[in-house]
C-alpha cells in the first residue's frame, strides 16, 4: 500500500514537473504565428461576382481617317500613362488588384472620319465615339479575320478582367463596363440596372469587360500636365465599375472619381474609402 502511494506521488511529481515546464515554456518561449487574412481580390464596384484581382489592360492609340497623328511619340505617351495608372492602382488597392497592361504596337488608323464616331456631339464625354471605336477595334484586332489581328497580342489569363483603353485622336473622355444582357433596348437595360437610359449603350464587344476612351490631348497638352493622368485613371476606373462622385453636375469629394474639370494631380489624389469598400478592398 505504502509502495503504491509512493509510486503514485512520484508519478504525480513528475507529471507536475512536466506540466510546469510546459507552461513555463509556453509563457516565455512560445509564439503564436500571426495569421494575416490573405489578400482578397478586389471585385468590380458593387458586384462581388466579378473579380478585378488581375486586370488585363490593352491600350490602343486610335486615329480617325480624316486626322493625322499629332505626335510620333504616342507609344511613349501611352506607356507613361499606363505605368502611372498601374502604380496608382497598386497603391490604392493594396495588393488586392493589379494591372497588367499591353500597348498595341501600331496606331489604329480608323476606317471612318471623326464625325462618324463622334456623331456631332461630345456630351457626357462622347460615349458614342467610345462605343463605335471600341467595336471597330474589337472587330479588327481581336477577331481572327481582322486586318490587325496579331497572334501574340491580347493574351491574358482566363481569370484576368479585360479592359480596352483607347487614347483617341479626337474629342472624348468616357468609360464604362460591358455587361452581358439578354434585353433588347437601352431602356430595358437601364431600367434593370437602375440607371439613366442616356448612359446605356448597346455594344457587341467580346474581347473586353470594360472600356474607356480619352482624348490624347489630356496626355500631351502642357495645361493637363498635372491632371491628365488623373483623367486617364478616372476613365479607366469607370471600366472597373467605379462611378463618378458628383452631386448633380458638381464634384463633391477630392478623390480621383470627383474630377470633372478640377482634378488633382494623380500623384496627389486617391480613391475614396467608400468606393474601396464597394470593391471589397477594405471592410
Amino acid at each position, binding site marked *: 500500500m505504502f509502495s503504491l502511494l509512493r509510486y503514485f506521488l512520484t508519478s504525480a511529481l513528475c507529471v507536475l514537473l512536466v506540466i510546469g515546464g510546459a507552461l513555463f515554456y509556453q509563457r516565455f518561449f512560445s509564439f*503564436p*504565428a500571426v495569421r*494575416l487574412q490573405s489578400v482578397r481580390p478586389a471585385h468590380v464596384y458593387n458586384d462581388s461576382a466579378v473579380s478585378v484581382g488581375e486586370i488585363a489592360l490593352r491600350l490602343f492609340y486610335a486615329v480617325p481617317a480624316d486626322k493625322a497623328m499629332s505626335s510620333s511619340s504616342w507609344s511613349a505617351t501611352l506607356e507613361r500613362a499606363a505605368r502611372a495608372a498601374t502604380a496608382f492602382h497598386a497603391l490604392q488597392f493594396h495588393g488586392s488588384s493589379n494591372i497588367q497592361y499591353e500597348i498595341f504596337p501600331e496606331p489604329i488608323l480608323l476606317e471612318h472620319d471623326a464625325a462618324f464616331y463622334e456623331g456631332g456631339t461630345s456630351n457626357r464625354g462622347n460615349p458614342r465615339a467610345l462605343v463605335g471605336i471600341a467595336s471597330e477595334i474589337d472587330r479588327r484586332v481581336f477577331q481572327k479575320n481582322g486586318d490587325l489581328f496579331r497572334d501574340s497580342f491580347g493574351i491574358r489569363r482566363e481569370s484576368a478582367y479585360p479592359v480596352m483603353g483607347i487614347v483617341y485622336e479626337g474629342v472624348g473622355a468616357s468609360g464604362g463596363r460591358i455587361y452581358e444582357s439578354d434585353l433588347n433596348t437601352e431602356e430595358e437595360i437601364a431600367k434593370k440596372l437602375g440607371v439613366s437610359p442616356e448612359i446605356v449603350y448597346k455594344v457587341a464587344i467580346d474581347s473586353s469587360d470594360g472600356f474607356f476612351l480619352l482624348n490624347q490631348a489630356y496626355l500631351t497638352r502642357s495645361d493637363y500636365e498635372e491632371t491628365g493622368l488623373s483623367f486617364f485613371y478616372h476613365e479607366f476606373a469607370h471600366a472597373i465599375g467605379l462611378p463618378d462622385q458628383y452631386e448633380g453636375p*458638381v464634384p*463633391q469629394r*477630392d478623390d480621383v472619381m470627383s474630377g470633372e474639370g478640377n482634378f488633382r494631380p494623380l*500623384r496627389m489624389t*486617391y480613391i*475614396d474609402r467608400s468606393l474601396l469598400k464597394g470593391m471589397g478592398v477594405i*471592410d
Partner: protein
Amino acid sequence: MGTMHFGRRLQTKIFSMMLVVGVFPLFAAGGLVSYSLLHSHRANVASIEESILRQKQKEIVQAMEDIVENVFNLVVEQENKSDISIGSQHFLLRSFLADQPALEEVSFISLGGQTVATRTVAFEGRNTLEDIVTLEGEETVRYGRSRATHQPVVAWNIGEQVTGENRVQGRIQRKLQKFLVASNGEIYFGPTYHTLEGPVITVASPVKNRSGDIISVLSGELNLLRVQQAVANVTLGNTGYLYLVDQDGFLIEKSNGRPTEQSLKSILLVSDVLHGNDALGAEAQARYVSFFGDSVVAAGAALPEFGWALIAEWPVDDADRPVRDILAPIITFLFFALFAVAVLSVFFARRILDPIHALEAGTKRIAEGKFTEPIFLTTGDEIEELGFAFNDMMKGLKRLQELKDEFVFVAAHELRTPVAAIKGYLSLLLEGISGPLSDPAKSVVVKVLNANTRLIRLVDDLLQVARSEAGRLTITVKPTEITAPIRETLVELKPLADQKGIVLAYNPAPVLPQVRADTDRVREIMVNLVGNAIKYTLGNGTVTITHELQEGTLVTHITDIGIGIAKEAQQKIFEKFYRVQTEKTKSITGTGLGLFIVKQLVEKMGGTIWFTSEEGKGSVFSFSLPRA
C-alpha cells in the same frame, strides 16, 4: 535455504536520495531564479517599449498640433459675420502653403449665401457686374503646389471660373463630414489616404471672427512627412522596429526592414490598438511571430484622434538576449549537476554496495559449507569492522563444522563395530546356531537384520561423508575398464530388480576406452545410481545403462522411467541429507547421503555429474570420467 533477489534497489535509493537532497533544491532554486529573471526582464522590455512608444506618440501628436496651431486655428480680424474676401482668401492660403511644408493643398469652404466676388456678365449688349454668391459648402478658393517648383498655385478660384451664362460652381461639400464637423466648430481629422507622394490626411477647421462666430471653413490636405520622420529610424535594441498604421491597418511608416502593402489589421494587437486601446506594460504586451517573420515582443499605443496605431515589435532574439545569456549557464549548470549526480550516485552506490556484495558472497560460501575463504574489506569504516566480525564468525563456524565432522566420524566409527557384530550374530541366529527358529521368531530376526543392515549402511555413509569432508577419503585412480564394476553392480542389484520386475539393460560397445578411476568407487557410484533408479521406479520398468564418448571423457548415463524429480527438488538433490518427500516416496527408505557421496566421489576422480528429470516420466543421471 532460499535466496531472495532484490534487484538494484539500494542503488536506486542512493540515486533518488542524492536527487532529492542535491538536485531538486538546485532545480527549485534555478527555476525560481529563472522565473524571477524572466518576469523582471518582461517588465523591462515592456517598460522600454512603452517609453519609446510614449515618446513617439507625443512627437506625432505634437507634429499634428503644430500645424493645427499655425494654420487651423484661424481667427480673422473682423467683427462681422461675412465671409473672408476672395483676395484675403488668396493671401491666406498662399501664406499657409508657403509657411507650412506639410500642407499639400488648402482651401476655403463657404458656409453659403456670401458675396465673395463679382463677375462681369454680358446682358442685353452691355456688360454688367454681378455678385457671386456662394452656396452652402461650396469651395471658393483652393491652392495646391506646383510639381516643378513646389510653390503655391491656384487650383480653383470661384471668381475666375465664369463661362457663359452660368458660373461654374466649386465643389459642393456640404454633406461631407469635414464640412459638417468644422462648420459646427470642431477640428476635423479625416481618414488617412495614400497618394503616390505619400500618406495624406484631411484636416478641416472653423474660421472665426474676433467675436468667435464661425464665418467659413478651412480645409487642408496634410502630408505626413513629420509623422513619418518621427517613426523612421527608430530602433529598439539592435533589430526592433516601430510602425504606424492607418485606420485600415495599412502602413504609414515603418522604422526599418521591409514594408508591406497588406493590411495589418488582422493582427489582434494592431486591431485592439486601432480601437483606441493602448497595449502597454508587461501584461498587455504580446508575443507572436509577426507578419515580417520575426518572433517578437510587441506593444502598441493608440492615436485615436487620427485613427492610427503605433506598434513596436522587438524580435525576441534581440530583446531576450541578455536574459538568455544569463539563463543559458544556469540551465547548463543545472543539467550538468543532474548528470554529475547520476554519475556520482553510481560511483557512491558502488562504494557502498561492493562491500555489501562481498559480505553477501561470503554468506553464500558459508551456506555452501566453505569456511576457508575470508572476505577482505578495506573501506576503513564500520563496514570494514563488520568484515572482520564476519571473518571471525566464519572461523567459529569452521571450528564448529570440524568438531561436528569429528564427532560424526568418531560416532560412526565407534558404531560400526557393534552393528557389524549384531549383524553377524543375527546371521548366525538365522542359520540356526541356537537351534531352529520358529517362524514368528525368524520373522522378527529377519526384520531386525534388515534394520541392522540399514543402520550399517547409514553408518557407512556417515563414515564416507566424514572421511570426505575431513579429506581422508582414499581414492586410487588408474586406467580402468569401466564395464567390469558396472557388470558387478548389476549382478549385485539384479535380485532387487527382479523383485520389482525391473529389467536392467546394459549393452556396452565391445570396445570402450579405459577411464581413470577407482574401480571400487565406480562400483559404489553405480550401486547408488542404479539402486536409486530401481527404488524410484514404481512397478515394472527398465533401467538402462549406456555410455557416450565425449571429448576427453566417457559419459555413463543411467536412465529410468520412474517417478522423476520435481523441479523444486532438482536444485537440492545433491545436498547432504536431502530427500524428496512426496506421497510416492515416503515408503522408500534412504539416508539422503547417497547422491552427496556420489557427487563427491565423481568429482574427486576428476569427473562431473548431472541429471535431467521430468516428474512422472523418469530421470537420466549422467557422470563423466576422464579417459585414460
